[in-house]
């Protein structure tokens, strides 16, 4: 079962982008841990900063403030070239759009082998090919697919290629950024099952970024909810779904339609007013207060503290 060994520690992470003369804080002071062998789900609406968190952990974006530790080692700075290469091998990413994340001019063999060429120079070309063929089998494709080009595959198959590519260098930790959002319903379940199987066989740790709450609940051990650059709640997935504490989490849960007419007709729904405020000029205090049904004066003045209310259940709200 779950170990309590921390694989990734995110500490007070901040990432700001320059927008004209202003600053956009896409991620603002976020701290959390990812344990070895678990799947941490990260949910939130578009523009809440969830993808930025993923990319900053991988160092695809340079963090503005704070640090990311991987097995206790700071990844943000002070890494030697060799170390950097080592960690790049251990951490891989699966992207959302299987149509734009594969180079259309490379065939499948070349796409999957690209990582091996850099990280596994000890292998001969033939050996690398063998690795690719094994990977293709592993993700449910066949050896014959190796010479084909991405346009010859369907969305689900392309996503399998993307998964095979990320597995090529034997990573320990995979960030999956909306890996199923672009796929059809009947194909989504195939890919999710594949990800789960791979996790068991290869002892992988996932950060699963998505906006589909029912799928996130199914795949994740723990789920974190983000709103406008801040983390608002983090708990085990059962706990979060049975006992959501933050008013935003509650609204988000109730907005997800349940595909069962009877349950749906009996359910009371919280419909949030208004839209996401601009992250360039976010509301003072609690960022959710402009849409929060519970908002009082204190919410505009004081930023709610990120605290652990029960064991393993963190929330940032004045009224919990």
């Amino acid at each position, binding site marked *: 079962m779950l170990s309590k060994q921390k694989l990734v520690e995110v500490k007070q992470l901040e990432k700001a982008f320059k927008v004209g003369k202003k600053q956009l804080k896409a991620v603002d002071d976020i701290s959390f841990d990812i344990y070895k062998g678990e799947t941490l789900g990260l949910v939130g*609406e578009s523009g809440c900063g969830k993808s930025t968190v993923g990319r900053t952990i991988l160092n695809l974006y340079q963090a503005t403030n704070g640090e990311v530790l991987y097995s206790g080692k700071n990844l943000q700075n002070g890494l030697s070239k060799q170390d950097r290469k080592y960690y790049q091998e251990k951490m891989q990413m699966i992207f959302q759009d299987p149509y734009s994340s594969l180079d259309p001019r490379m065939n499948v063999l070349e796409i999957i082998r690209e990582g091996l060429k850099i990280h596994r120079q000890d292998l001969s070309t033939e050996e690398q090919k063998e690795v690719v063929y094994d990977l293709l089998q592993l993700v449910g494709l066949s050896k014959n697919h190796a010479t084909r080009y991405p346009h010859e595959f369907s969305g689900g198959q392309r996503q399998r290629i993307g998964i095979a590519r990320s597995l090529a260098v034997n990573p320990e930790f995979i960030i999956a950024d909306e890996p199923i959002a672009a796929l059809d319903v*009947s194909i989504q379940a195939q890919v999710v099952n594949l990800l789960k199987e791979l996790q068991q066989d290869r002892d992988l740790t996932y950060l699963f970024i998505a906006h589909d709450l*029912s799928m996130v609940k199914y795949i994740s051990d723990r789920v974190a909810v983000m709103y406008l650059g801040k983390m608002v709640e983090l708990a085990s997935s059962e706990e979060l779904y049975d006992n959501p504490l933050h008013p935003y989490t509650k609204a988000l849960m109730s907005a997800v339609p*349940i595909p069962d007419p009877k349950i749906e007709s009996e359910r009371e729904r919280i419909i949030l007013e208004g839209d996401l405020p601009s992250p360039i000029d976010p509301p003072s205090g609690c960022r959710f207060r402009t849409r929060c049904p519970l908002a009082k004066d204190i919410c505009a003045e004081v930023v709610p503290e990120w605290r652990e209310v029960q064991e393993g259940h963190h929330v940032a709200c004045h009224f919990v």
Partner: protein
Amino acid sequence: MTDTILSVDNLDVSFQTYNGVIKAVRGVDFDLKRGETLAIVGESGSGKSVTAKSIMQLLPKKTTMIDEGSITYENENLLNYSRKEMEKIRGKEISMVFQDPMTSLNPTMKVGKQVVEGIRKHQSLTKKEAYNRAQELLELVGIPNAKERMDAYPHEFSGGMRQRVVIAIALACNPKVLIADEPTTALDVTIQAQILDLMKDLQKKTGTSIIIITHDLGVVVNMASRIAVMYAGEIVETGTLEEIFYNPQHPYTWGLLQSMPKMHQDRSVPLIPIKGSPPDVSNLHDGCPFAARCPYVMKVCHDHVPDKEQVSETHSVSCWLQDERAPRIKQPDFTGGDHVVQTKTR
């Protein structure tokens, strides 16, 4: 006046492409009753948008062939209408909301003007009257400060607000039928809930009949009273909301319901996906289009297309399992324990 406002009968639509003829829609049949909401559910490429666009006649004339069938609106076959005649229907009698609110508005034109344009096209109102009406519409769809927002450009609106504007335009002339093609797919869940609520609310106020096209069964539950499930250009099953969710008969519908995780699903149990991927409609074989992916496939499925069988007055399905010679298959449990199934077999 009959109960049915729009009916599509045996519609066949195909496209001429460099790779030959693609039969995108084959033998589609459905009726839309006054004031009801019908959902057309299917995956990408199943022909649901093509069906909608052929009702509106928005498909490119040059390459589209409507080989067979009729689309009857208020006792007139729309397929016999000329372009001019169709223009009087489009927007006035039947209007459409598109998926992507980012591209369905004109970025160089003020929002108010775009609503006014729709109104003046079909109604003889003065500019002033049309302007006031536009403002009313924006208020109706829940845009705050409608008066000031009339002068804003689409890029100044969020996705949800833009979709509200698109809905306002669609409703500008009190259409009798509204076709919404994936109206919430591009939106976030909390905004999706707002827009679905708005559409239901507006339907109550105006009595418009709605066809909602979606791939998301969750959206359907909230909106529709009847559902048509499409697969590879054909409607494989039609029924009321309850019939499709609690007593589905087609293995594809079973597969769709099974492949979705339920809120209370045990995480150690793997999901049950539909194996394989949707067929290439440019290269369809004889027989049932779902045969290649169907877990219950029989010999006959590969050779002959199943007929439509009536399960109840409102429920029909095209599947050889309905034939009396077919083995009896127990419906799989697709509720994940959320709901106790009525184990009613045929």
